[in-house]
């Protein structure tokens, strides 16, 4: 007995309080989660609440000072000005195009990584996918600015075929966004393929399924949640970005408008109103994604 108790730490206030904590699970959780929950509640949700609130404020037309008063004027301006509708439409179209492009590109790459490549080749590909994320986002967009510039490398290359590059346009925005967010699509789809047991492919072939049948009936339904998960990244990141359109586009995008209103025009209430648009679109998108089971794959 004595030899047994001697292996325990000495009896004392420290040991007794730790023992009490061990028995009291809610107290453990409180200590563990209080800092992140506090941060999340105050800094993140708090600022979001102020954003929503300030969307109903307005500027004094004479002094340009923010009037902390309830008004729906911003929302009326937002809906009535056809320019805003065009901008929203353009942004959503590009976001959808980027998502579709990244799906098409990521699918074969993720498939190859998960099911074909040897472990060595797989880690090389992982490096290749992740490496761009190590360099600064701005640097990468600027690199595209150089590539896309008039008389730049892309123009030169396409010129050989008698074509002309997209210059700074909606097409170039689509190109650059597709490049930027591709890793965020590849990784979830890769994980999705990885999770399918190999025997399912064999079982499908065994039951008479050719490659295309197996893909349509077994593979696609099983990776669809992963694809939806990846599309949340590509879609939402495109929707909110203002740097890429500023650098490689002529037209305005949602992010630009918010940025300009907030930073240049100093109309913070209208910027807040505009910011509700992507939040609303994302809410709808996430609802659809949830129906497709995207959150089971995250």
């Amino acid at each position, binding site marked *: 007995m004595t030899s047994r108790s001697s292996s325990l730490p000495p009896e004392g206030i420290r040991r007794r309080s730790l023992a009490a904590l061990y028995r009291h699970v809610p107290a453990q959780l409180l200590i563990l989660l209080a800092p992140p929950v506090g941060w999340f509640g105050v800094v993140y949700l708090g600022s979001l609440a102020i954003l929503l609130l300030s969307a109903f404020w307005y500027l004094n037309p004479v002094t340009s000072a923010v009037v902390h008063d309830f008004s729906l004027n911003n929302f009326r301006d937002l809906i009535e000005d056809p320019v805003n509708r065009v901008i929203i439409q353009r942004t959503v179209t590009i976001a959808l195009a980027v998502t579709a492009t990244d799906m098409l590109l990521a699918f074969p790459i993720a498939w190859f990584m998960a099911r074909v490549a040897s472990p060595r080749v797989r880690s090389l590909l992982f490096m290749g996918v992740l490496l761009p994320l190590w360099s600064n986002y701005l640097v990468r967009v600027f690199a595209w600015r150089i590539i896309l510039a008039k008389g730049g490398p892309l123009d030169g290359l396409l010129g050989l075929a008698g074509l002309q590059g997209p210059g700074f346009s909606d097409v170039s925005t689509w190109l650059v966004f597709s490049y930027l967010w591709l890793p965020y699509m590849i990784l979830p789809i890769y994980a999705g393929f990885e999770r399918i047991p190999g*025997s*399912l492919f064999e079982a499908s072939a*065994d*039951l008479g399924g050719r490659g295309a049948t197996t893909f349509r009936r077994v593979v696609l339904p099983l990776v669809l949640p992963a694809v939806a998960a990846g599309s949340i990244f590509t879609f939402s990141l495109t929707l909110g970005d203002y740097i890429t359109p500023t650098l490689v586009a002529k037209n305005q995008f949602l992010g630009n408008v918010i940025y300009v209103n907030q930073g240049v025009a100093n109309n913070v209430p209208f910027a807040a109103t505009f910011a509700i648009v992507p939040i609303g679109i994302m809410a709808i998108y996430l609802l659809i994604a949830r129906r497709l089971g995207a959150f089971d794959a995250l």
Partner: protein
Amino acid sequence: MAISPFPDHPAETGPRPATTAARGSAVRLESVVKRFGDVAAVAGIDLDVANGEFFSMLGPSGSGKTTTLRMIAGFELPTSGRILLEGEDVSNKAPFERDVNTVFQDYALFPHMNVGENVAYGLVIRKVPSAERRERVADALRMVRLEGFDKRRPSQLSGGQRQRVALARALVNRPRVLLLDEPLGALDLKLREEMQIELKAIQHAVGITFIYVTHDQEEALTMSDRIAVFNLGRIEQVGSPAEVYERPATEFVAGFVGTSNLLRGEIAERVFGTAGTFTVRPEKIRMAEPGATVAADEIGVDGQIREVVYLGSDTRYHVALGAGSELVVTQQNLVTSSMEALAAEGRPTRLIWKRIHSLPISS
């Protein structure tokens, strides 16, 4: 093949073996080799499985039995040799071009489909009309005693139920040959024994050739019409359960199927009068008092009981024969109590068995 030194004793070989020629060959392997890199997983196998037969491929892990099964299914292609399915060469055909179906070790049920959709999968692909499809799925589920489970998801089933769904999904296609890859491996002992009986009954009812891979010798002995014992990518022996058990062709078979009880060298010479390796099954040996009389058709050898292991219905005795040799003897505890059995340790004894039960084997 089994060396039969006592051909005047056919009773020991069991009721079968019907010749494959008479019933037609379902699967035929001709010098099949499969290499993975430098490793020959299957190093030249010839095999003939008859129509309607319950054929087991038995062996330890890495013996090539699963690779052989996968080559018959088409998941692996042989490096050399031919695979014939009812006479048709399918060596290089894809799995979906072969009229065989597989029950996988991990069941491989499609998690996004319910039980009914899983079972119907092969029929949907073969474009069987929906009325017939429904009927066949219902029949298949009834056969595995899962009627009314159509709408359940695989995740809502127990291991034994998943096993049955996998079986129904394969059988519903009415393949020429059903391949089973250690299908009972993941089940607990009780369920496994139940499923063994059920599998055998189902095979009897549908009359489809079953090729069954297992590392469990008891399972193979219980269910099979014939057994092929695999070792190191080769087949050591093919025969009925009785043949394989009673007349092991090689030392490996003697050891893998049942307990290895080998007599060789000096002891073999002393007991049998000739050099060589002999085997005798533990339950064939009778333990008698030292000096007991040995009949003309019997063999007697003296030894000392070194260890006694009480197993409930039986007791296992390890008897030292001198010169480093030892025999294992199992005796049913018909009248012996555990106390009596255990008290025998250390006592001298005379082991007696019928001459016909000790067979020479090739090592």
